[in-house]
C-alpha cells in the first residue's frame, strides 16, 4: 500500500499487485469500517436483550460454542438467525436501492418505479385474504406478484428497447392500480385478517429462523457479488447514455442486468419478510452524505442498510414489548428522522 502520487482532491489508498489494483477512498473505507463495527455491536446487543436478558459475557461464550444450555438455545437458535437476517436484508435492500437510484438518476428511484413492491404486496394479500395460506404460500404469492408486475411493466413500456422514462411512467401507473386494488382488499377484509396483512405489509422479521437464513444466504452469495461487479459500469451510466457509450459501456445491457439484479435482491427480501420500507431509499442517500461522494455507492450503502435494519429491528422488538412492531415501520420512522437531520445539517454546513 502506498498513497497516491497525485492529489485527486480526496485522500485515497492504492494497492497494486501484479494482476490487480484497488483504489480505496479513505473516507469511504473508514465509514464502512466504522459502520461494520457498529453493526456488529448492534447484533451483539440484540442477542443480549429481549424478554429474557442475558449478560454480554454469556452471549460471547454461547457464540463461541460453549455456555450453558438455556442461554445457548435462546441466543444461537432463536436470536442469532433473526439478527443475521436483519443484517443480510438491510444490505440487500440498500444495494438494490443504490442500483435503482443510480439507474433512474433520481433520489426517489426504487424498485417501486417498476411496480415491484405493490405487485408483491398484492400477491401476498391475495394469498392472505382470499385463498388463505401459510408462510411459504405468502412468500410464493408475493414473489409471483412482484415478478409478474415487473414483467408486465417491462412489456408495456417496451418500444425498441426500454427507456428509463417510459419504464418509470408505466411503473407508476401499474403501481397506482395495484395500490388501489390493495386498498380495496384491505377494506373488505375482516379486521383481524386486515391487521395481519398490514403487519406483513409493514415488513416484519418475526418468526424467521434458520429455515429462512440458509436459502437467503445462498441466494445473496450469488446476487451480491454480481451486483457489485456492475458498479463501475453504473458509474459511467450516470454520465448519461451518450457519454457512457462513448466510454465503451453497453448501456442497455448494463441497465437491464442491473435492474434484474436489483429486483432479485428486493424480491428475496420482500418474499421472506414483507416489504420493508425506506431502507432502500434512505440507506444510499445517508451513505452518500456520510462518505461525501458525488453519487450513490454500493458498498457503503450496503453497510449502512445492514446497520439501519439491525437497529430498527432491535427497537421494533423492544419499544412496545411485548407487542412487536413491524421492523419496516421503525425503519421508516428512525431512518426518516435521521435523514431529515442529515439534510438540514448539510445545508447549514454549506452556507
Amino acid at each position, binding site marked *: 500500500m502506498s498513497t497516491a502520487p497525485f492529489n485527486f482532491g480526496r485522500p485515497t489508498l492504492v494497492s497494486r499487485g501484479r494482476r490487480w489494483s484497488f483504489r480505496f477512498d479513505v473516507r469511504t473505507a473508514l465509514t464502512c469500517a466504522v459502520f461494520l463495527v457498529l453493526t456488529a455491536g448492534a447484533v451483539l446487543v440484540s442477542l443480549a436483550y429481549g424478554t429474557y436478558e442475558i449478560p454480554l459475557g454469556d452471549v460471547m461464550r454461547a457464540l463461541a460454542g460453549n455456555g450453558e444450555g438455556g442461554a445457548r438455545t435462546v441466543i444461537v437458535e432463536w436470536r442469532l438467525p433473526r439478527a443475521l437476517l436483519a443484517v443480510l436484508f438491510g444490505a440487500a435492500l440498500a444495494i438494490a436501492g443504490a442500483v435503482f437510484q443510480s439507474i433512474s438518476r433520481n433520489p426517489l*428511484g426504487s424498485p417501486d418505479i417498476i411496480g415491484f413492491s405493490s405487485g408483491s404486496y398484492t400477491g401476498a394479500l391475495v394469498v392472505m385474504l382470499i385463498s388463505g395460506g401459510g408462510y411459504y404460500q405468502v412468500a410464493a404469492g408475493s414473489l409471483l406478484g412482484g415478478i409478474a408486475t415487473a414483467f408486465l411493466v417491462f412489456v408495456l413500456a417496451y418500444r425498441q428497447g426500454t427507456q428509463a422514462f417510459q419504464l418509470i411512467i408505466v411503473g407508476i401507473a401499474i403501481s397506482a392500480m395495484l395500490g388501489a386494488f390493495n*386498498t380495496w382488499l384491505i377494506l373488505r377484509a375482516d*379486521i*383481524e385478517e386486515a391487521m395481519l396483512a398490514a403487519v406483513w405489509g409493514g415488513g416484519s422479521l418475526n418468526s424467521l429462523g434458520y429455515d429462512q437464513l440458509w436459502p437467503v444466504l445462498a441466494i445473496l452469495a450469488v446476487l451480491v457479488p454480481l451486483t457489485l461487479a456492475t458498479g463501475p459500469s453504473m458509474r459511467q451510466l450516470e454520465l448519461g447514455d451518450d457519454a457512457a457509450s462513448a466510454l465503451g459501456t453497453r448501456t442497455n445491457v448494463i441497465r437491464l442486468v442491473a435492474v434484474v439484479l436489483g429486483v432479485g435482491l428486493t424480491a428475496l427480501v420482500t418474499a421472506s419478510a414483507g416489504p420493508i420500507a425506506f431502507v432502500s431509499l434512505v440507506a444510499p442517500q445517508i451513505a452518500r452524505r456520510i462518505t461525501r461522494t458525488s453519487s450513490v455507492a454500493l458498498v457503503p450503502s450496503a453497510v449502512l442498510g445492514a446497520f439501519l435494519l439491525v437497529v430498527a429491528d432491535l427497537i421494533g422488538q423492544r419499544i412496545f414489548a411485548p407487542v412487536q412492531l413491524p421492523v419496516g415501520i421503525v425503519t421508516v420512522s428512525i431512518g426518516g428522522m435521521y435523514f431529515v437531520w442529515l439534510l438540514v445539517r448539510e445545508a447549514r*454546513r454549506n452556507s
Partner: protein
Amino acid sequence: MSTTVAAAPAGRPGRAKAPSSGPSGRDDGKGQRPGLARTNAGRSLGLLIAVVTLAVCLLGSLAIGARSLPLPDVWNALFAFDGSEAAFIVRDLRVPRALLGLIVGAALGVSGALIQALTRNPLADPGILGVNAGAGFAVTLGIAFLGLTSFEGYLALSFAGAIVVTTAVYALGSAGRAGATPVKLTLVGVALSAVLAGISSAIALLRPDVFDEMRGWAAGSLAARGWDTFWNVLPFITVGLVLALLSARSLNAVALGDDLARSLGASVGRTRVVVVIAVTLLAGAATAAAGPIGFVGLMIPHIARWFVGPDQRWIMLYTMVCAPILLVLSDTVGRIVLSPQELQVGIVTAFIGAPVLILLVRRKKASGL
C-alpha cells in the same frame, strides 16, 4: 449545495442531455418540447372540448347512482324543484357531491402541476410536501386520542395537519443559504412523510379500533360529504387556484433553472413561497374533504403537458379542467361498478387513469416530460 444528488429528473437516456451547469441551474430539457397541440387555437379548441366533457361528466354524476334518474328528472330537480324524492336526492346528495368532486379534482390536479413545476421533478406529487402524511397523522391522532369518529371532525384536523407538516417541510427544506432548492424540498418532504406515516401505522397496528377507522379514511371518498364540506373547503381551494394561475408565468421561468430564472427577472424565492402556499391550500383542503386521493395530482399534469407543451399557464388551465373529469367520472363509476356497494373514488381513479396514461406513454410523440 455543493454536491449533486443523482437527481436530474428521470432523464431520457438515448437523447442528448445538456451537461448540467450545477445543481441549481439544471436544464432537464423540459423547456424545449412542444406538445401535441402546437398553436394556441388548437389548445383553445382542446380546452373547449375538455370543458364540454367535464360538463357531461358532471351531468352524468347527477343522474347515475344507486338509484339512477332520467335526465329530465335531474333537470326538474335542479330548475323546477317539486319536492319529490328524486329532487331531494339530486339537490341534497348528488349536486354537492358532484361539485365537491369538481373542486377537489381541480385542487388535486393543480397542486400536482405546481409541485412538479416547482421541484422540476416529474415524479413529484402533492404528497411530496407531506400533505397526505400530515393529514393522515393528524386524523390518526384524533381517532386514537381524541376519540373522533365523525367525518366533520376529521376535516379541520386533517387540514391543520396538512398545513403544519407542509410548513415544517418547507422550513427544514430551506435551511441553509441556498434556500429551498427542489432536491432538498423533495428529500425532506419524502423523509418527513415517511416518518409520520410510520408513526401513524404504528399507532394503528397497536390499536385495532384506530386501524378500522383509518382504513376507511385512507381510501379516499366523496360519499356522504354534503353541502357543509363543500362550503368549508371552497374558499381555500379558490384562493389556491388563483395563486396557481398567478404564479404560472414565474414557474415558466423557474423551469429554466434557478440561475437563469433570476437573470430573467423572476423572483425565485417569492415564487417558491407562493407556490408552496398554493399547494398547501389546494392539496390540504382536498385531502381534508375527501381523504388522500393519489394519482390525480401525479398524472393529470403529465397528460396536460403532453398535449399543450411546457407552458405552465396552459398546463394549469388544462389540469384544472381535466383533473375533475377524472375524479367525477371515477366517482360515478365507483357508484355503479359494485352496485349496491360503493367503490371509493380513490380506488377507482387509478383504474381509470392508469390505462390512459399507459396508452399515452406508448404513443410515439408523447415521450417527453
